[in-house]
Each structure stands twice: as structure tokens, then as C-alpha cells.
């Protein structure tokens, strides 16, 4: 199905910082095959016709209905995209899975139930199950005859998941593991049949188990009272000397962390994609409202400050989409070089893009936060009322920054992974930092701008990469193996990396678009890329200053700042005018239209 990936070069995870990727390297939504588009259409129509009309019932926690809807989705094949054909699935690629997740995210609670089932509830068995386990569970998960859930978190261990206290002890007859402990915040717990539970064998060997709801000693606590996602089930799961047959140990004893963390990479991508879909949807809702709400005798969409918000939502939607498809494209290309049917190889391929997956999780959830917040603002007092959709969207969105690894944890992963891979020699950061030192010591030469639509932006991008290399290089040199303690510096570096990834992804996709459609047909996309790049340069400069001031002082700091100035030379573009243009086009279209 992935004819796209054939003949593409495999790009290493994190290499965007150190290499220049070209438009032909990036996958874009325009490159989707007809099959992917049809999968998207089926997912979209299903959501529009079967899910959205039942919104009120879903929000009232009618879990029988949620199960029924999952089953219907299963009939269409929408739950089995990631499950190999051999076990009753469709065995399609990650792209198909993301296109479907994107199109099924319209009802946030259902989307949460669906994601917990198909991703964290099912994939551990797809990737780590043995033959018997796969045969036993996957065909029934594919149809939602069984609903899945994932139980990692405990009251005392969330971000620090490996500190779990749930214990597993082998029974005397050697036939069961006896699990004792309590899992917290388990999505789908209220109605799930199969839980992937993490516990420590003998109190120290972190291990995953496939736990059925009906096993003796398993019970589910009442629903949590949540801020949002009222229609998704979230409960604690109690394990009181629960008897789990030994054949239900998932993967190897003591290797549960591989399952816990690897599955999260895919979870993060999916969270990213549904957040992006949310941004686009809310942009449309805000545009529709702003068009028909009059104040001072004119629609509020004619006010510059409202235009700014509408345009910014669309810009972020567009840029994040560029980043998302680029990421999935890279993973798909890497997957084309391995044996897809070997789950270990597949996971390893995905794991090497952990940096990009974390970027998508952080960026996706934060632009969704911006968008829901500003959508409430566009609605004014109505935005604060339960009678309008944005009030709920605002609450529903809040969890995205917390689960699948909090954004703090993911920020530590982004720059932390770049440093770790560099010290292992997998990424050439240190060499690049050294070269850069040489460049910094030589006098600065006026640079010629390249040709093309994004001449200035491309130059800025190259310079921003240098800033990131310098910041990370200095941090590594200064703090060495203690760099993990410098969270603020690492987060600043991660923010720089996120902005770079966004800027570059937008430039590459838009260049590809311009090449195929011509500049005139890509006005909004070009403007969006320019505005984003302009703002990114400013953010990067601020983050770099924070990091540099934390790492150095006196003359050293002054020298670093002088270099920073050299790399942040950028004539600001008229973002006011560009945002107004984008907003006008949104208002004319009546919806997100990038």
C-alpha cells in the first residue's frame, strides 16, 4: 500500500537538526494514495453519521452505546488497521491508521475510548504478544467483541511509571501470577474486557500482563469525576490477589518497560494527529461564529484582533499537519526497509523517531490548547456557556497535555534524546558544534540569499539550526552527564527544536506544493509558512537567550549573545497584513481552508 515509500531515502530520527532535508524527502497530505483517502472518507462518514448524532448519549456515559459504536467501527475494519491480516486485521500501514484516527476524532470522548482500545489497548499484543496470545485476543479486539485498555499509571507513579508498586508473585503451583496493587486513571476501565497491566514480578522485575476483567481478584472502581471527556470511562482498577495465568505474561519478564515506552511513541503520534484535527475543526467553528456575530454594526470577523486569532489557528493547523505527515512519511520509509511482519523490527523503526513523536505530542496538544482557548474568546460570553461547543472543547482538550507522557516529560525526551544519541555517536551533534565554533570565530560574511519563495526563511532556518546546535553543544559540554538536571535549559532547547521542525516542515511542504500547483494557487500556504517562520525566529531567539544566560555569564555570555544576534538577523515580515489576508480567506470560505 505504501507505494510512496519506495525509492525514498531513509532519514534518521532527529537528523532534521543536522541535515538539510529537501522537498522530495517529505511526505505531505497531497501524497496520500487513493486508498488512504478512501479510508479517511469512510472514517469521516462513519463519525459524521454514526457518532456525532449520538453525542449527548455518549457524554451521558452510555457505555453500552460506546461499545456498540466500537463494534460498528469494527465491522468496517476501522479497529483492525494495525492488526496483521493473519489475526483478523487489515494489516495496513501507520499512515492508514493515522488518517483514520484523524477522521474519527470529532467526538472527543469517543475518540479517547477508540484510541485507548486500538492503540494502547491492542498494540502491546500486536507487537509483543506470542502466537497464542495474538490468536486468542487480536481477532476479537479487531471486532470490539473485546474492548482493550492499558493500565500503567498508579496513584504513586505517573510520570515515573517504572516506580509502580503493583506486585506479581508466582503461585506455588507455578500456574498463575498473583497481582496485587491498584492502577489509576485507566481509560475504558468501566467497560473494557482486556487490560494490559504492568506489575513488578517479585517487586522488581517490571513486566506486562494481559489481564481479563473476569479473572478472579480484578475489580473496577467507580468513575472518576473529570474536568472533560465526560463520555469516556476513566476508573481505577483494583488487583486484589488477582490470578493471572502464566501464559498471559506479555513479552519477557523484566522487560515491561520496552512495552510501556514503545507503545507510547505511537500513542503520541495519534494524540498529535487528533489534536491537529481538533485545531482545524475548532478553527472552522470559530470562523463560522465570527462571521455571523455582529458588534458595532459589523461582523466581529472584520476586527483585526479577531482576524489574528482565526488566522493563527489556521496557521498552526497547517504547520502541524506538515510536521505530522512528514514524520509519518519518515517512519513509513524506514518501515519499507525492514520486515514489517517482524514486530520487533517495526518497533525499532518507530522508536528511532521518538524525538519526532514527542514533538508531535507536545506541539499538537499545545496548539490545541491555544485554539480552544482562543475559540472561547471569539465566542465571548457565549464561549463560557455550556450551550456552545467551545466550552466543552476547552475542557476536553486539557488532558492532551497531561497523558501519553506529560509535556514536561516529552520536552525532556526531545533534547535529551538528541544528546543521548549524539554521545552514542548516532547523531553528529558534537562535530557540528565544533564546526560551528570555527565558523563563529571567523568574521561574519554577508550571505547571499538563495532563490525561491522562501529565500529569507531558508536562511533563517539554517541559522536557527546553528543556534540549536550551539545551545545543545554548550549544554553537553558544560553539564556533561549532569545535563538531565538542567531541565529548564533542556526545555528551552526542545522548544527551539520544535520551532525548527515546524518551520522546516512547512517550508518543505509548501515548496512541494508550489512546484506542483504554482505560487498563485498556494497563497495561504505561503503566507502561513512566512508568518510561522517569522514568529519562530523570534521565539527561538528568546529561548536561546534564556538558555545561554543560564549556562554562561560575563564575557562568555556577551560573546554568545553577539553570535546569537548574527544568527537571528531577520527582516520581520508584515505578519499583520499576512494574517489579515489568511483570515479574510477563511471568512470567505467559512471554514479552515489550508
Amino acid at each position, binding site marked *: 500500500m505504501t507505494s510512496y515509500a519506495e525509492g525514498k531515502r531513509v532519514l534518521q530520527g532527529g537528523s532534521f537538526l543536522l541535515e538539510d532535508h529537501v522537498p522530495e524527502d517529505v511526505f505531505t497530505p497531497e501524497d496520500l494514495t487513493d*486508498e488512504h483517502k478512501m479510508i479517511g472518507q469512510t472514517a469521516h462518514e462513519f463519525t459524521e453519521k454514526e457518532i456525532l448524532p449520538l453525542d449527548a448519549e455518549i457524554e451521558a456515559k452510555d457505555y453500552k452505546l460506546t461499545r456498540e459504536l466500537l463494534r460498528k467501527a469494527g465491522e468496517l475494519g476501522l479497529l483492525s488497521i494495525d492488526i496483521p491480516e493473519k489475526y483478523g486485521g487489515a494489516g495496513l500501514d501507520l499512515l492508514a491508521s493515522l488518517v483514520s484516527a484523524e477522521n474519527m476524532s470529532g467526538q472527543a470522548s469517543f475518540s479517547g475510548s477508540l484510541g485507548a482500545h486500538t492503540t494502547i489497548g491492542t498494540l502491546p499484543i500486536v507487537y509483543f504478544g506470542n502466537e497464542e496470545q495474538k490468536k486468542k485476543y487480536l481477532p476479537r479486539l479487531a471486532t470490539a467483541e473485546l474492548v482493550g485498555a492499558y493500565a500503567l499509571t498508579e496513584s504513586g507513579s505517573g510520570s515515573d511509571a517504572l516506580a509502580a508498586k503493583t506486585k506479581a508473585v508466582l503461585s506455588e503451583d507455578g500456574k498463575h501470577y498473583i497481582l496485587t496493587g491498584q492502577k489509576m486513571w485507566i481509560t475504558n476501565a468501566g467497560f473494557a474486557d482486556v487490560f494490559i497491566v504492568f506489575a513488578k514480578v517479585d517487586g522488581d522485575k517490571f513486566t506486562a500482563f494481559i489481564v481479563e476483567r473476569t479473572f478472579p481478584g480484578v475489580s473496577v472502581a467507580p468513575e472518576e469525576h473529570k474536568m472533560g471527556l465526560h463520555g469516556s470511562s476513566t476508573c481505577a482498577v483494583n488487583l486484589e490477589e488477582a490470578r493471572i495465568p502464566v501464559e498471559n505474561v506479555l513479552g519477557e519478564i523484566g522487560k515491561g518497560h520496552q512495552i510501556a515506552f514503545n507503545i507510547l511513541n505511537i500513542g503520541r503520534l495519534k494524540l498529535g494527529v487528533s489534536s491537529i484535527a481538533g485545531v482545524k475543526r475548532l478553527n472552522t467553528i470559530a470562523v463560522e461564529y465570527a462571521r455571523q456575530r455582529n458588534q458595532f454594526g459589523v461582523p466581529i470577523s472584520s476586527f483585526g484582533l479577531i482576524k489574528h486569532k482565526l488566522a493563527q489557528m489556521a496557521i498552526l493547523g497547517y504547520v502541524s499537519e506538515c510536521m505530522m505527515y512528514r514524520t509519518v512519511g519518515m517512519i513509513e520509509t524506514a518501515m519499507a526497509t525492514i520486515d514489517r511482519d517482524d514486530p520487533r523490527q517495526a518497533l525499532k523503526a518507530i522508536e528511532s523517531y521518538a524525538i519526532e513523536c514527542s514533538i508531535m505530542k507536545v506541539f499538537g496538544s499545545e496548539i490545541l490548547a491555544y485554539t480552544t482557548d482562543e475559540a472561547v474568546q471569539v465566542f465571548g460570553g457565549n464561549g463560557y456557556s455550556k450551550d456552545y461547543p467551545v466550552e466543552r472543547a476547552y475542557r476536553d482538550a486539557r488532558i492532551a497535555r497531561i497523558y501519553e507522557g506529560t509535556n514536561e516529560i516529552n520536552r525532556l525526551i526531545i533534547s535529551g534524546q538528541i544528546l543521548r544519541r549524539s554521545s552514542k555517536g548516532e547523531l553528529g551533534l558534537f562535530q557540528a558544534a565544533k564546526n560551528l565554533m570555527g565558523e563563529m570565530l571567523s568574521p561574519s560574511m554577508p550571505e547571499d540569499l538563495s532563490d525561491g519563495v522562501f529565500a529569507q526563511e531558508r536562511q533563517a532556518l539554517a541559522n536557527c539550526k546553528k543556534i540549536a546546535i550551539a545551545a545543545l553543544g554548550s549544554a553537553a559540554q558544560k553539564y556533561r552527564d549532569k545535563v538531565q538536571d538542567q531541565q529548564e535549559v533542556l526545555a528551552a532547547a526542545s522548544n527551539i527544536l520544535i520551532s525548527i521542525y515546524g518551520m522546516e516542515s512547512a517550508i518543505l511542504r509548501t515548496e512541494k506544493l508550489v512546484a506542483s500547483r504554482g505560487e498563485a*494557487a498556494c497563497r495561504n500556504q505561503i503566507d502561513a509558512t512566512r508568518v510561522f517562520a517569522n514568529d519562530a525566529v523570534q521565539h527561538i531567539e528568546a529561548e536561546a537567550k534564556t538558555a545561554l544566560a543560564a549556562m554562561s555569564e560575563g564575557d562568555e555570555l556577551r560573546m554568545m549573545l553577539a553570535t546569537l544576534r548574527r544568527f537571528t538577523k531577520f527582516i520581520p515580515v508584515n505578519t499583520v497584513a499576512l494574517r489579515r489576508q489568511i483570515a479574510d480567506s477563511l471568512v470567505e470560505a467559512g471554514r479552515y481552508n489550508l
Partner: protein
Amino acid sequence: MKICVCLKQVPKKDSILRIAQDQKWIDERDISYEMSEADAYALEEALRQKEAHGGEVIVISMGPERTRQSIKEALAKGADRAIHLDDPIFEQATDAAGIGRAIAAALKDEGCDLIMTGLQSDDHGFGQVGLIIAERLGMSSATIVMEVQIETGSVRVKRELESGWFQWVRVPTPAVLTIQSGINQLRYATLKGIMSAKKKELREVKAADLNLTADDLKPLQSIERAYVPEKSKQTEFIEGKPAEIAARLVEKLRFDARVF
């Protein structure tokens, strides 16, 4: 039972339509396309008949490269094979006569028992193509069909008349039926269907294969000017004391709007 369904790809319902510079049609740049709604119901009806009586469903569509997306969708939903009339010469055929002539030529040797089309397309809305195909192929025809019952040597169909009236008629086969929207529930393309569609036959047909030239397809009808309908709505404010306003409103509703 061999059933052929004629599909047309039209701009998506939620498209923002702009009139083209030459004012002859809409500006087709930046527009996404989909299967015309009534055609989707025709396809659904054909698939249901095949499921009940066995046989084959063929889809045929005329249009540029992009049309393949809709053809593939039909295959994904269960059609067995497809014919795509894809040739710049076919672009000449902008009216029902030309389109009907080309499709009839392509179906001449298929020996279909039934040909189903949508009642009318969502773009031009001629409502003629099905009838022209029937004439050209010497088949019987029925329009605005809401229900189809297959018999030996004929079909019984329920036709929609005006003001909520219906008519049952028996039509000898082979026949062309133009299908009304909303008569059945459209199915989704399942993922299995989508993936298996790739293996189905999608035959590309050129004008030369049908011995047709640009001249043969020259439109007999043309669009003089395309424009957005001018608004004629008017709002009237009734002023005065509440009782007077109410009386006046009742009068207006009764005599102008005639709602009671």
C-alpha cells in the same frame, strides 16, 4: 443479472463555488470532488440487487484523471469492475447528448440487463443522460425510480410522481432506470473493500476505441452565462401596538405567505 451504474463526479457539496472568469462555468481550481449523490444511490441499489439476485455490477464514468477516485470508491463499495472514459476528446461532451452518446457507445457490447443512473447530476442537473442512453441502445426506461423489483424479463419499479403520488410500472428488460436520491441507505466502503478494489479491473477507454471523434460529441446545448442567483428576499418590519402587529401578521401569514 448484469447491472451497469453510470457515475458522475461533481464538486463536493460543501465546496465554495466561484464563477469562472469566462462566466461559462465555475472555477474548478481548488475544488474537491465526489460522486454525485443520486449516482451513489443508484450504485447502492445495484449492489443490493446483485446481492439478492446474483450477477455483476459494472460502473462506468466519464471524466478526467481525478474521476478515478470516485470509480475506485464504487469498486471499494462492491462493484465488480469499472470502465473509465478518459480522453481529452470526451471533454467536448459537455451536454447530455454527448455524454449519453459516449456512454451508450461504451456499453453497446456489454449486454447489460439494467443500466442505472442517478435521477440527475448535482452539477448540471440535466436529468437526461439515462434516457439518451436508453434511446441509443434501444432499451426501455423509467425515471425517478424509488423501488426496484426484478422479475423474469422485466422489472417492476415504483416511480415518484408529483405531490407525493407514486406509480408502479412494469418495464421490459433490458432497461435504463434513473434512480431517486434517498431510496436506500448508503453503505460505507469497508477497509477490506478498499484494499480489494485495487485488484479489480478498471478499464480505460479512449474516444478512438469507440470510433468517436470530437465532432461526434460536439455539444448541442451550451451555457450562455453562469451566475449566482440574485437575492430577492425582503424583510418587512411591522410596527405599531402589539395587538395591531399581531393582527397584521395574521393577515400577512394568511394572504401573502398563505401558511394557513
